[in-house]
């Protein structure tokens, strides 16, 4: 890592130092905005410096010492972001947590990370922490942002953010040397220091604390900024969990490096309208956000008048034809260009306006594969949406799509300073300045993930496609084989199906079995709206899922996927022979999904074992009873008879020809 040429170019190598620089260079430019009390409250870089400094001093006086860890729990609030840098400027390490995790999950991480301080959003989080105080002897102080409802709490260990700032300001005013001491402290921070610990939610086992140094983050962020030419004029919106590396890099690391403005929405209900108000120039979202938006667009357009719908459809057809070429700077006839301009006025512009993408310069999607149709849709509108492939352990960036080289089914070229290698078993390995320091208190895991010479195993299987871009097919450990030896990549099959708006979630089975079979979860918004238009009555998700017409719809989707798979020599063997539509929505509260909405395959296999059995024993229906957790925390059970359908499979493209010839 030390050999990377980028390191020498570094002037400010830690976020506190960069903060000082920004307060100088970008003094009056906005650093953060928060929609609060109805308007966008704005803080400039110099104001942010003051906020962080006073809090930092207050924190210090409350007993925070170098090396201490401070948990950050809550939604994207400016003060929580500030508290991270405030802790870093004292030599401490912030540990952001997923705020929606239940108390026990949280307790594990807090205990494991040995946090002494916690900076939390509100009463809810305070209560959560206090309820676990017996499990957390090391947790000494809790700082809260929103005082609502906390007035009568015992304030011996509890502090309001505001109060610590007041204390800090008083201390600074009383003792002129404090500020200098604080600045001196910042000067001693260095790139190799631990910057942050992020706990990966992990599909299996306990969360692991990924330790990232300032160098990791600063260099990655700087490379990312350079790659997309981001500067201080960007606007982004911070709405993804703060504990997630993506948010940490986009809303903190890159924002500090480039000096751009991060906007915090008012609350989770208003994210959509808040994004629209801000109109970010740089935006990041996992595929499901883009999927959701597209579904919303299509559902609304279904209700539009015939003429408008027709106009919309024809302009969208035009966009599909020439939108991407125009975006990529290819040659397009003048007539088409003019028509596209008209479309921009009539449809594309208004759509972008509705989604808040009017000013978007660069948009990224990552985390999972995005449906090629969805991806193309956004690009054809003229939005520079790109994919990247990354990991917490890499400080995000592994591969990125350079402008003009965007392909829907691959995730791009290695990011700046990143090397990539494919292992013999197909697993993707990388090495970069962003590679993490190690897992906290888990050397064994560190050893199995990171080789002596700095290569990191991603756990994903993939290959370099003909165009030199990386293509990911599945988790390396999930890729298996059917009994006939054909390759079975469940995620690959699942994603193909999930790209239909009517399908929300898919779980594929097949490893070590005779054929591939899937569970399907329908998308209630999309199918519900379809049902409304077609006068299909239903009382519940369960009823809709079991509806014969819904089955027909899913049937046709599966059939299309099978035809598609047949065209891919590597995948043709694993076409879907049987499927069923699950009688309940997979839910994180029931443990079926992770908190980041990823399918917990083995858990589901266990929970629905009878259904899987039915998939493979040839029966056409199966009665099951499933325990569920309701929103208010009560438990209950639902029962259903689930229908199973057989599907036609198609001969692989090559062999099909041969058969026809015979």
């Amino acid at each position: 890592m030390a050999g990377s040429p980028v390191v020498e170019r570094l002037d400010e190598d830690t976020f506190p130092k960069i903060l000082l620089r920004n307060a100088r260079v970008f003094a009056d430019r906005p650093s953060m905005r928060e929609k609060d009390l109805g308007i966008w409250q704005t803080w400039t870089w110099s104001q942010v410096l003051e906020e962080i400094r006073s809090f930092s001093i207050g924190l210090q006086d409350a007993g925070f010492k170098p090396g201490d860890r401070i948990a950050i729990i809550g939604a994207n609030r400016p003060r929580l972001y500030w508290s991270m840098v405030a802790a870093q400027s004292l030599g401490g390490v912030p540990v952001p947590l997923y705020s929606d995790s239940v108390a026990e999950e949280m307790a594990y991480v807090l205990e494991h990370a040995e946090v002494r301080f916690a900076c939390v959003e509100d009463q809810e989080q305070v209560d959560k922490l206090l309820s676990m105080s017996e499990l957390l002897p090391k947790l000494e102080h809790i700082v809260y942002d929103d005082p609502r409802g906390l007035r009568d709490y015992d304030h011996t260990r509890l502090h309001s953010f505001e109060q610590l700032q007041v204390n800090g300001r008083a201390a600074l005013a009383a003792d002129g040397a404090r500020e200098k001491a604080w600045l001196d402290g910042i000067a001693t921070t260095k790139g190799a220091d631990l910057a942050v610990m992020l706990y990966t939610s992990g599909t299996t086992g306990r969360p692991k604390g990924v330790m990232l140094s300032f160098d990791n983050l600063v260099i990655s962020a700087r490379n990312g900024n350079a790659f997309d030419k981001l500067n201080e004029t960007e606007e982004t919106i911070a709405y993804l969990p703060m504990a997630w590396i993506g948010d940490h890099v986009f809303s903190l690391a890159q924002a500090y490096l480039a000096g751009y403005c991060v906007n915090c929405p008012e609350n989770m209900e208003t994210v959509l309208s808040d994004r629209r108000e801000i109109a970010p120039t740089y935006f990041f979202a996992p595929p499901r956000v883009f999927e959701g938006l597209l579904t919303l667009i299509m559902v609304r357009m279904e209700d539009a008048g015939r003429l408008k719908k027709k106009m919309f459809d024809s302009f969208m057809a035009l966009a599909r034809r020439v939108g991407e070429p125009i975006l990529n700077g290819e040659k397009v006839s003048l007539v088409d260009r003019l028509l596209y301009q008209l479309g921009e006025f009539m449809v594309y512009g208004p759509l972008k306006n509705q989604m808040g993408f009017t000013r978007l310069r660069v948009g990224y999607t990552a985390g999972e594969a995005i449906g090629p149709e969805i991806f193309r849709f956004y690009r054809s509108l003229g939005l520079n949406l790109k994919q990247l492939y990354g990991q917490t352990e890499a400080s995000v960036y592994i591969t990125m799509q350079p402008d003009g080289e965007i392909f829907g089914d691959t995730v791009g070229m290695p990011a700046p300073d990143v090397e990539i290698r494919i292992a013999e078993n197909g697993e993707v390995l990388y090495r970069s300045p962003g590679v993490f320091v190690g897992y906290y208190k888990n050397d064994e895991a560190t050893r199995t993930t990171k080789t002596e010479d700095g290569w990191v195993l991603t756990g994903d299987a993939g290959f370099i496609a003909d165009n030199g871009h990386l293509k990911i097919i599945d988790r390396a450990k999930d890729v298996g084989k059917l009994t006939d030896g054909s390759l079975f990549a469940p995620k690959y099959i699942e994603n193909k199906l999930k790209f239909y708006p009517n399908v929300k979630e898919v779980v594929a089975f097949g490893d070590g079995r005779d054929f591939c079979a899937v569970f399907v979860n329908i998308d209630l918004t999309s199918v519900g709206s379809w049902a409304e238009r077609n006068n299909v009555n239903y009382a519940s998700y369960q009823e809709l899922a079991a509806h014969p017409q819904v089955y027909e719809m899913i049937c046709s989707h599966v059939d299309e996927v099978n035809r598609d798979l047949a065209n891919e020599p590597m995948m043709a063997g694993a076409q879907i022979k049987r499927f069923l539509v699950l009688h309940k929505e997979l839910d994180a509260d029931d443990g079926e999904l992770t908190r980041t909405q990823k399918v917990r395959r083995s858990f589901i296999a266990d929970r629905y074992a009878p259904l899987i059995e039915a998939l493979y024993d040839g029966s056409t229906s199966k009665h099951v009873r499933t325990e569920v957790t309701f929103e208010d925390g009560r438990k209950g059970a639902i029962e259903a008879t689930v229908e199973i359908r057989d599907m036609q499979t198609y001969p692989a493209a090559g062999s099909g020809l041969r058969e026809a010839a015979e």
Partner: protein
Amino acid sequence: MNAFVDPVGMAGHSGLTKGEVLLRVDNVSLSFGGVKAITNISFDILKGEVRAIIGPNGAGKTSMLNVINGFYHPQEGTITWRGQVRRKMRPYEAASHGIARTFQNVALFKGMTTLDNIMTGRGLKMNKNFFWQCLHWGPALNEEIEHRRKVEEIIDFLEIQAIRKTPVGRLPYGLQKRVELARALAMEPELLLLDEPMAGMNLEEKEDMSRFILDVNQQFGTTIALIEHDMGVVMDLSDRVVVLDYGRKIADGPPEEVQSNQDVIDAYLGVPH
């Protein structure tokens, strides 16, 4: 000292401390054309408490609230507000004395947005004259902004940010009730009268509303008198309960005591008199 203890500046302005008598009703009777709605009722409301008024339908609960805020004038009896006997107080005078209320059937101003509805609650605190208002500049603009900020704090407090600019007519019932509470809170009342704040709500909405009512009481020290049918809610929320039946008071005391009172049980079970 916590700077956020009283964000809206609502702590009582009467100079009374918690536990003193804020309002006393003495031997009040009210009738409409010979029909007695309230007969000889006396009770008091203490500063800082949550006082429930309960009773079967037609017991005279709403009439009692109407008497308290001056909408009806009782034929007999006196009402003492902050130690002073009130004579024929008009509703707007009651409002300016710090009594605010919500209504059984939501009484929002249908032609306005949530924000404007809540702003109406600030009317009494605004005093910039007509001519400044025509200009909407200088003092009038500052005043408008200052009160907008207070209103936003209430919006934040009641978590209705997402509907800030929605015309209230378009809101579901539960949210309308919340906006109505917000509007009453905007008056920074000393005594808040809630007429069936949870009528027609589902369980979740009731829980939210209960939480807000308690928060208002604790955070701002607002004295609350509420009428409610849901006995569970009453028992959870209130410090003391008055029970009315056929316009008469049949019990008065802490919830658990009232609950076991035989007259109350009879009244609720409909035992004939």
